[in-house]
């Protein structure tokens, strides 16, 4: 079986179209992030989060109104997978043990004969949350810098580094935008938390993986087809590696979709981020990263010519 055998699509020629698509996706994402703000989870915001399992199903709205009375302010109440399980998040102040007792006793009153137990809980102090957030920001920034340097060392041209990094920022921004827009619309936790950061870094690693394979081929083809224009060689390289890109992305997408379906509630956010990120990352490796190198390279040549003509 073969796909994309002797592929020869004009990837570079249509770059204005793909730039426009990417540009508008990024714009939508940035607007969404600016309007709604980043939806931070408990890890980065601090607070108290409980996952409570009931013996029999309960309604979200009733639970919310019951808890609003006890806690004094409205908590976030969400379904967590099955109708028996609820996620309750509150920033009610006070000792965590006391808050938990308050919640459980008021649920006991509201639902007599329907035992509730805490399956999981996360309590994060605001100070601690702040330091996790900083660590996350550093880790994403560091990874971008490290990758920039690695590619600079391996390919000896800043244009490659820049193309790869812009493609990476493109991937992360669009995934982030997706998570901001669909945050409250899907029935599982899509807040930005530690595991989502892990997903972002994996996306970064994954997308760079695809991009580097293409760059590697460009480098190789440049040595073989020395007389061809740069654009043509780049386009050929993308096509040469196309079937590999699609197959690897395909197998990886398979498994993250499996993870999304069978991995349980806790991994839903992480695996969805990977699904979106890998899709966008594959797209950017094919249509954006190398196209940017072509444009940057042109600029380099132009400015070099200017210097000479002077």
């Amino acid at each position, binding site marked *: 079986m073969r796909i994309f055998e002797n592929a020869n699509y004009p990837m570079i020629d249509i770059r204005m179209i793909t730039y426009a698509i990417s540009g508008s996706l990024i714009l939508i994402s940035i607007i969404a992030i600016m309007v709604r703000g980043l939806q931070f989870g408990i890890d980065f915001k601090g607070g108290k989060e409980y996952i409570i399992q009931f013996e029999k199903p309960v309604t979200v709205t009733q639970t919310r109104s019951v808890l609003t009375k006890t806690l004094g302010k409205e908590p976030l109440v969400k379904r967590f997978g099955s109708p028996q399980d609820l996620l309750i998040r509150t920033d009610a102040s006070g000792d965590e043990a006391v808050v938990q007792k308050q919640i459980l006793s008021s649920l006991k009153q509201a639902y007599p004969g329907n035992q509730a137990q805490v399956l999981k809980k996360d309590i994060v102090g605001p100070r601690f949350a702040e330091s996790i957030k900083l660590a996350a920001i550093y880790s994403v920034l560091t990874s971008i810098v490290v990758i920039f340097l690695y590619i600079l060392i391996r390919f000896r041209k800043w244009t490659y580094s820049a193309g790869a990094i812009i493609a990476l920022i493109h991937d992360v921004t669009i995934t982030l935008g997706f998570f901001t827009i669909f945050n409250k619309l899907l029935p599982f936790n899509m807040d930005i938390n530690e595991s989502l950061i892990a997903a972002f870094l994996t996306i970064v690693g994954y997308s760079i993986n695809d991009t580097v394979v293409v760059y590697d081929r460009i480098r190789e083809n440049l040595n073989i087809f020395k007389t061809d224009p740069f654009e043509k060689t780049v386009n050929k390289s993308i096509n040469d590696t196309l079937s590999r890109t699609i197959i690897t992305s395909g197998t990886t997408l398979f498994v993250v979709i499996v993870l999304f379906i069978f991995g*349980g509630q806790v991994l839903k956010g992480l695996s969805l981020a990977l699904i979106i990120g890998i899709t966008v990352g594959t797209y950017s490796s094919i249509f954006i990263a190398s196209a940017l190198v072509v444009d940057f390279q042109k600029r380099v040549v132009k400015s070099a010519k200017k210097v000479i003509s002077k």
Partner: protein
Amino acid sequence: MKGNGTKIGFTIAFLVISVYYLQFSIRYWILTGREKNLQGQAKTEYVQKHQKQIDNLRPKILNLGLDLQGGMHVTLQLQTQQLLKDLAKERADSTLNHALDIAAAKARKNNTDVVDEFVQTFETRDPNARLSRYYRSEADNITRRSSNADVVKYLQKQRNSAVKRAIQIIRTRIDRFGVNEPSIVKQGQNRIAVELPGVKDEERVRNLLKGTARLEFRLCADPQELQTSLKKIVSYYNNADTTAKVDTSAQQASKNNPLLKVMVPEGRSVVFGAATAADSAMVDSLLGQPAVRQMLPRDVTLLWTAKPGFTGQNGKKYFNLIGVKKQVELNGDVIVEARPTFDRYTNQPEVSMTMNREGARKWARITGANIGKPIAIILDGYVYTYPNVQTKISDGRSSITGLGSVQESQDLVNILMSGALPAPLDIVQVRTVGPTLGQASIHSGFSSTIIGLIIVALFMIAYYNKGGGIADMALIFNMIFILGILAAFKATLTLPGIAGIVLTIGMAVDANVLIFERVREEQAVGKSMRAAIDSGYSNAMSAILDSNITTFLTGVILYSFGVGPIKGFAVTLMAGIVSSLFTAIVITRIVVDYMTRDKNAVVNFG
């Protein structure tokens, strides 16, 4: 085929090592799995027979994270501010306290180190001020003449050793508590991460970790003076309430009295008042007003009792507020032995303590001078008992009563005996996972791994034919190696870690995809089978290395910044990359070479 001897050697070596490390876990799971299925007599017999074996295996098995086996993760933070205050001892004055408060607030806001912020704050207030005014140490050669830089070094050293001591103390306490495989590690400069697998009774753990065990013996306030103050303060709030309008009848006034709304005034003996746990914070803030404080005797402070004094008509429990002297007569460090006992008459649990000689001498003097008066025994800022002194106690024995349960008395003994924490610890993060959720996570993680593996394997065979089959074989080796690496390095498998393994399955075939695509290309330009395979492997190499190194680097970054379960994800991702490189490049090559050893043999790459 040349050079394949080494390759085969390595492969077998890695396989043997991986299987060796994994067999502990497999044996352990089989043994404990059987135990779960048994019941009653059979179970007891089984446990008796195999317990030793299980205990021997346990430290060697693949660690499961708390999110998989259930348990509690707590992050504690040392109150550096308090430590700096304590180190200054009696030299601490309002200037120092003020600088410390500002520094603590800044450190909280900017997430910086309290010691650094403190020095900065201190120096900006007065560039010529010397820290050596507050801190002295013979051992560290800090004298009146020491420079600020030296003092800072000393303070940092003290802070680090305080964290170290705190870790030791917590370890002792937890060991006595009895937890399988607890992990207690330093995190950053002043944090301690504690992982307690399988722990269910959170409340106990919390008390165990937080209890600073600052045991103090203090005299109580003079009942007469206390009563006078109480009257003054109540009437202050009567008058202060301006919303009472013109109607100032005594009854109306007391109805609107903000203090009386939350506190029942007592004024009998040394009990100032009583309030429910929920109202106590409000009472504290009302009584904390500077104007109100002045109405209390200068040397007196008010502390809550650890246990409720009575149950009100509304069914709520009320805690007493006790007037005690500010001066500490005797400290917990004089205690040499503590043990849980029962009160001879009421049979209530209590803790009896024995003091060292110096403590006993002081205790004799204190009790002798205060016969008939109450003495408060205070632990971590809460009054446990305030018994009246019956006679002079000269043997240095005393006991803490008013404990709720036998368990509590045992825990208290544990805390007293493991020593006092150098400074209080704040709990900044708690994460608990119930065992049922953990079990469900293992199940869903396991099934996603298997399903993912099957789908990818089938696809590879469909697409690359025999080549795909070889890649699949490499994939299975890969799984064994990853788990072997995790077990050998004592890494912890978490749920995100399993996600990392699943992701690796998808990405592991990448190297083979690169190679096989390359071989096909080489074949397409007319090279012979063997030549195509040779150049396919060697030409694909730079792309494979470049792409895997970049991914590995992000794994390293994730590992160094992430905490808890996310570290587990990074570990499996890195282990996966290393092992999939080996399996995809080395193992498949051995097999491919073996299959093409005959010149005319054909290995189909689809």
